[in-house]
C-alpha cells in the first residue's frame, strides 16, 4: 500500500489515553473481480478511542462511505480487520453480526433520512424499531418510555412522534434518524454526511444536538463528511481519504495549519469563506 505523508499524532495528551474502542487494520474493499476491480478502500488503518470524534473527510468516491459501511457491518470488507471492543468482528456477515450483542453498540445515521426511514412507519415506530429487534426483554417492556426519551435527547418534539416521514421537515427527519440511532445508547455512532442535505441553520442545530449528546453520554462518533469547515470545529482528529487511501491524519488544527498532502491542500482551498475573495 502506498500512503502519502501521514502525520502521527498519537496521544501526546496530558490525560491518560482512553481505551481503544475500534481498530481498523489494513481494510481493503474491492468492487468487482479481484485484481481488476475497483479498490474503493485500499489498506486503511486507524483507531478510535472511547468518547472521541473522528472526522473522516474526502470527496465523493474517496471511499469514506464504503469504509463507514464496512465498520457498521452493512457490507463485508475484501481483506483486513475490524476490531470493536477487543473483538474481531471482521469475519461476521451482517446477518451474523445482527445476532451479536455488539450490533446495538454500533449505529449509523445516514445522509438522507427520507431514504433511510421507512416511509410507512411513523416517527415513533422508526425509533422503536431497533428496540424491538435488538433490545433486551426489559427494554422492550419499557419501549414507549425509551422512544420518548430518545426523541427528547435528539431534540424531536413528542408531538411529532405520530407523524410519517413525509410530514416532517428535513431537520425533523434528521432528528428522527438520530433518535433511532441512539435509542439503544450505542457506543459508536457512524454519521454518514448527516447534515449535508440541510441548510446552515438546520445543520447547526443538528450538530449542536449531536455534540450535546456526546457531552452527556461519552459516545464515540465517526463523522463522515466532505465539509471541512464543519468537521474542523467538532472533530478531535481528522482522517483524510483520497482514492480509497488514507492520505493524512492529525488534529484539525494541525491539518489546517500545515496540510501535508497536496489533496488536503486542495480540499482546504476549495472551502468557500464568508467575505472570501470574489471569484
Amino acid at each position: 500500500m502506498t500512503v502519502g505523508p501521514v502525520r502521527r499524532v498519537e496521544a501526546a495528551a496530558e490525560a491518560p489515553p482512553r481505551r481503544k474502542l475500534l481498530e481498523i487494520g489494513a481494510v481493503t474493499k474491492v468492487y468487482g473481480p479481484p485484481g481488476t476491480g475497483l479498490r474503493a478502500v485500499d489498506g486503511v488503518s486507524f483507531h478510535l478511542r472511547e468518547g472521541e470524534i473522528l472526522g473522516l473527510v474526502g470527496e465523493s468516491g474517496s471511499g469514506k462511505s464504503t469504509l463507514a459501511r464496512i465498520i457498521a457491518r452493512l457490507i463485508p470488507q475484501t481483506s483486513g480487520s475490524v476490531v470493536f471492543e477487543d473483538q474481531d468482528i471482521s469475519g461476521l456477515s451482517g446477518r451474523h453480526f445482527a445476532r451479536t450483542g455488539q450490533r446495538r453498540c454500533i449505529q449509523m445515521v445516514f445522509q438522507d433520512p427520507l431514504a433511510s426511514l421507512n416511509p410507512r412507519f411513523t416517527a415513533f415506530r422508526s425509533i422503536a424499531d431497533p428496540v424491538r429487534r435488538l433490545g433486551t426483554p426489559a427494554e422492550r417492556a419499557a419501549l414507549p418510555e425509551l422512544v420518548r426519551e430518545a426523541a427528547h435527547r435528539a431534540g424531536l418534539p413528542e408531538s411529532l412522534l405520530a407523524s410519517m416521514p413525509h410530514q416532517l421537515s428535513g431537520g425533523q427527519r434528521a432528528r428522527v434518524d438520530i433518535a433511532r440511532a441512539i435509542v439503544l445508547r450505542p457506543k459508536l455512532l457512524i454519521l454518514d454526511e448527516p447534515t449535508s442535505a440541510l441548510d446552515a441553520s438546520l445543520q447547526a442545530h443538528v450538530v449542536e444536538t449531536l455534540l450535546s449528546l456526546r457531552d452527556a453520554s461519552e459516545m464515540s462518533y465517526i463523522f463522515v463528511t466532505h465539509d471541512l469547515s464543519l468537521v474542523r470545529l467538532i472533530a478531535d482528529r481528522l482522517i483524510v481519504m483520497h482514492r480509497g487511501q488514507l492520505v493524512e491524519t492529525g488534529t484539525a488544527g494541525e491539518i489546517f495549519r500545515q496540510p501535508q498532502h497536496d489533496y488536503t491542500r486542495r480540499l482546504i482551498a476549495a472551502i468557500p469563506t464568508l467575505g472570501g475573495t470574489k471569484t
Partner: protein
Amino acid sequence: MDPLLQIEDLAVRFDAEDGPVRVLDGLSLSLGRGECLALVGESGSGKSMTGLSVMRLLPPQARIAAGSVRLDGSDLLRADERAMRRIRGRRVAMIFQNAKAGLNPIRRVGDTLCDILIAHDGGRLTRRAARGRIAALLGQIGITDPERRLEAYPSQLSGGLCQRIMIAAAFACSPELIIADEPTSALDVTTQKLVMDLLMAACRERGVAALFITHDLALASQYCDRVCVMRKGRVVEEGPAGRLFTAPAAAYTRMLIDALPAGKGTAQEWRAAIRSHAGMSS
C-alpha cells in the same frame, strides 16, 4: 438603466387541504443586466419558488395570486404558454440541483442535448449542426474530449461532469438570464468550486445575468455582487454581498451567518452563537 428582471409584490399560494399556504408573500426584487444576484434563505423560504415563478414552471397546486415578473419590461405572468416556450431556454435558462435527474437515463447525453437545442431553435437547426455546437460549447468550458462525453449515458458520468454539461446546455442558446437553483449542493467541495468558477466565468464573459439560488451563504458571498435574504416568502434584507455579510441589518441574516461554522475559532464559539438565536430558525 432599467433592470433586466423586476419582480414586484409577487404572491404565490399553494392550495392545501387545510387552506391556502403562502409560499411567496409580496416578494420584490430586481436584477440588472450582467449582474449576479444571490437568493439565500432556509429551506422553505421560497427561493426555488421564485425561480420557478420566473420560468412559469410552478407545480400544479401553486397559484399566482398577485404581482408581476417583468423581463426587459414585459410581464411574464401575462405571457401565453407559446410565448413562454420561446422565452425558456432562449432568453432565460435554468440549471437545477440534480443534473442527472434532468438527463434522460436511457439516452446518450449528446442526444438529449441536441433535442434541447433543436427545440429551442424552433426546429431549424440540423442534428449535426446542433451536435457540433454542443461539442464546441463543452470544449469552451473546459470539458476534455467532448465528443466522447456526448456518447456517454448519464450513469457513466460523475455528478460534477453532468452539472458542467448542463451548464454548457444552459448557455447553448445565449440567454440573457441564467437561474441556477442550488447547482452545486449535491457536489463535494472541490467539484463545487470547479463548477461555480466555471458558471460564473461563463456568465461574466458573455454578460449574462445570474439569479443564484442557494442556502450556502459563503458561496453567495464569494461569487455574487448582491444578495437577497429570504424568509417565509419575502425578502427580509437586500444589499451588496460585501456589506450584507459584514454588517447585516436584519437579525435573521445575523442568525444565518452565525449558524455557519466558517469563521468560528472553536466549537464553543460556534455553539454559543447557535444557542443565542434559539427559536429563530424557520
